């Protein structure tokens, strides 16, 4: 934070005008020196989203850094305002105007440069933090450019539909379940898609958020660090039961996850045979069995006969 020193107004000669600028600066310095360490050391480690995954830990640091940067800014403005409102309050009976200060080029330039430096610094920091933990848990669309290095991530497809999430594990035969289970210490790739309207997959404690768009794939990465359970909520308004569209996921040990996956694959084998083959998106008109069923039932078009029986026609 750039130092704000007193401008040089015309102080009446001989009058003991207090150095307002210096006072404000000192109060600000002391308070910032107290508040910033409290934010960094005391509050920071407890800030959401916690540290259950690498994206969550990195975002926790991000939020802490931004809080540390913005606290002095807020303090400066507040201290100045309070100081000014107390010191320069109109005394009763004083009907005079104040001094005609129209501006001060030095102060204005300092302010502009100072805010520009802070803001650009935050931009550089934000970009680095976006790239480093492979996209910072945000959905990167279907051609992600920030991928985790080394090894194959565990593939989990998140299928959002009105009003429930289901999860498919292509590396385990493509079974589909309503349970989201992940192994600890593993890089995970979420392929998020929707069967109808726009939803958003938000694994809160893993700090992963990716919108689920119909017929589009949205990829997000994270790496789990601790076992435990986490909440998954839909965070894009998707209709009547959006508020009730949530479930709980679990991060298990590697062995526990392997056991769960093979057990579930076996249990759901019959169901998996009935499902369409694993694909990154599911179009109601291109899933063969679904198309045939629609045809039998006399319904066409986006699964609701909205567009009438002559669709889809190749555009």
């Amino acid at each position, binding site marked *: 934070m750039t130092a704000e020193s007193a401008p040089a107004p015309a102080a009446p000669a001989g009058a003991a005008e207090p150095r307002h600028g210096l006072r404000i600066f000192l109060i600000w310095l002391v308070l910032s020196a107290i508040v910033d360490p409290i934010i960094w050391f005391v509050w920071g480690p407890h800030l959401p989203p916690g540290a259950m995954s690498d994206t969550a830990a990195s975002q926790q640091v991000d939020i802490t850094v931004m809080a540390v940067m*913005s606290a002095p800014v807020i303090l400066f403005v507040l201290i100045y305002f309070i100081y000014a*409102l107390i010191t320069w309050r109109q005394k009763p009976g004083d009907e005079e105007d104040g001094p005609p200060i129209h501006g001060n080029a030095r102060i204005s330039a300092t302010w502009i440069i100072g805010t520009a430096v802070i803001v650009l610094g935050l931009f550089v920091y934000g970009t680095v933090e976006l790239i480093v933990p492979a996209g910072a848990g945000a959905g990167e*669309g279907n051609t992600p450019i920030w991928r985790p290095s080394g090894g194959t991530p565990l593939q989990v497809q998140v299928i959002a539909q009105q009003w429930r999430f289901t999860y498919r594990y292509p590396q385990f035969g493509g079974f589909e379940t309503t349970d989201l289970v992940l192994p600890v210490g593993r890089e995970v790739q979420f392929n998020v898609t929707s069967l109808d309207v726009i939803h958003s997959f938000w694994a809160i404690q893993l700090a992963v958020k990716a919108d689920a768009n119909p017929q589009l794939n949205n990829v997000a990465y994270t790496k789990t660090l601790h076992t435990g359970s986490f909440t998954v909520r839909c965070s894009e308004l998707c209709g009547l039961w959006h508020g009730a569209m949530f479930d709980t996921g679990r991060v298990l040990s590697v062995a526990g996850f392997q056991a769960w996956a093979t057990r579930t694959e076996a249990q759901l084998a019959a169901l998996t045979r009935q499902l369409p083959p694993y694909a990154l998106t599911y179009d109601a008109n291109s899933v063969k069995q679904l198309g045939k069923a629609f045809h039998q039932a006399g319904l066409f078009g986006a699964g609701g006969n909205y567009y009438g029986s002559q669709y889809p026609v190749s555009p």
Partner: protein
Amino acid sequence: MAVEIQPEKAREPGGREPGGPRPARPWWMRPAVHTGLIGAVLGYLVGHWLGNFLAGGYSQVANSGQNDMAIVLGYLLGTVGWLAGLGVFNDLLRAMAGRPVRTVEEEEAAAAGGLARYFRYSLDHKVVGLQYLVGMIAYFLTGGLFAMAIRTELLSPTYHTLNANAYLMVVGEHGTMMIMMMSSIILGPFGNYFVPIMIGSKRVAFPRIEALSFWITPAAFIVLLSGVLFGGFPTGWTGYAPLSIQATQGQDAYAVAFGLMGLSLILAGFNIIATIICCRAPGMRWSRLPIFVWSMFTTALLMVLAAPVLVGGMYMLITDRTVQTAFFTEDLGGSNYLYENLFWFFGHPEVYILALPGFGIVSEILPVFCRKPLFGYRVAAAGMIGVAILSFFVWQHHLFMSGINPDMRPLYMLTTELISIPTGFIFLVAMGTFWKAKIRFTVPMLFALGFYFNFLIGGITGVFLSDVPADTTEHGTFFSMAHFHYTIMGGLIFAFMAGVYYWLPKMMGIKLNETLGKIHFWTMFIFFNSTFLPLFAVGLLGQPRRVFEYARNLQPLNDWVSISAFLLGGSILIFLINFVWSTVIAREREEGNPWRSRGLEWQVPSPPPPGNFRYVPVVLSDPYEYGVKDAPPVADLDPPVGVVAAAYAGTEAEA
């Protein structure tokens, strides 16, 4: 015997003497709200019939049991009927028939007072300003009632006062009502009323367009409210396709109302821009323009440039819902991203349409109650222009999580961070104005100070949201909702209240009760902060927006917020009581210049006479020359003959 032939007197078509008075007609025969209502009903019935005729045979209509075409055409023709009944098209038809049209001066002279003119299509910008003021307060209170319903439901994560349908309806109505109608909350009342007076003009450039922009708003309001009759719309104010295509009839109310309001924004903005550019008095250079007028200018530019995109987007939504186009359907070659981008390309400038007028009002008020010139006038104006320009380059920050091309994200993060620089100029200007000032804590000043405090928090949390990694946790949660309530309600609405308390004595010649005003300020400020500050935590702890079930451990925070919200509603009720009591019952006169302001609007009587000024003033200085020894008055209101012409010759060379 010669037949005496009377000389033919020149007569205008319609038998009126040239320059003679119009034949007076009784109030119920002149077009006003009552004829507008008749026109609206007739128009709705015609439109509804037409829609049934056109689309009744569609299989989509027969199967779903709802005819969107009928509703949309009903609303649109109903609005046309409303406007026709009000007499909006009368002058157009008169001009096409070659008959004389109404003039502003005639209008102002004829209406010597009385309430009837406030219910008519009036060409006097002061009447339009007061119509807007009452309308905006009514729309704000209606939106606020919906907010009370939302907070009632959120008292418990498990016990539901409202069922899921009703809750979504209320959420959508609250958000849309507020954002839609509050876009004009300052430009409408104060922009239309004071911009001409502040620039020394006797009228606005396009009085008919200005009045039209007002009369569209009650139509948009009623159309939006009528969505309640259809069970509302499930998309919230953002109206994302494809959910909005899937929705039932209430969505049509949303699309038509928003489109109509977009039209109103375009018209109002267009008029203000033309007025500011073309109608300035001699001597009113750009460098002497009050900072409020700068904010109105930049806001109007945003309105004119951004609202057309909204109208286009709503139009495409309506065609997707009625005539089976597929703009937003992936299946058939469209894209849901198209809607998101169209909407937010409008939506981001829209939030600056909501923020800039607030900047203008508080920067205008501060010098008056600090008795000092505005510090850094050029910086303030440059800040507003910078915000306006940059606001078109940041809209993708609403779409960081949506799966857009990832390499665009650092770019939009940069532009969003950059926009906080011109936004920060407002604080520089305020802090500089405070330096060694003589600060008076009147009610308008209190609200302006409240604005600065709230906008500080709102603005800083905006920086948190602009950081893409942090946005992963914050997007779509109550954190983002608290941020925009701090900037829009804590900013714009507090500035609106400051403007009302500051300018009502000028607009109506009546003072608002000061004690009630101070109670209103302190209760509103305290309960506003106690309602929205915890919501940042609620959002970070994992509560998404627009949900009616949330984690049980967040119930104490939600309950605190709900109780605060009810008390906040109570404080706004105090405002309503103060406003209604002072203007209707008590009516204490407030003449002259109670705030001792140097502004040009304060140099004319309260309320200003027809034509605002007896003579076109010659502006001598900007309105912030406090403390300057022997400063000239802000304008010469009675310039000697010949000075005006000479001054025009001078200003042509400059501005």
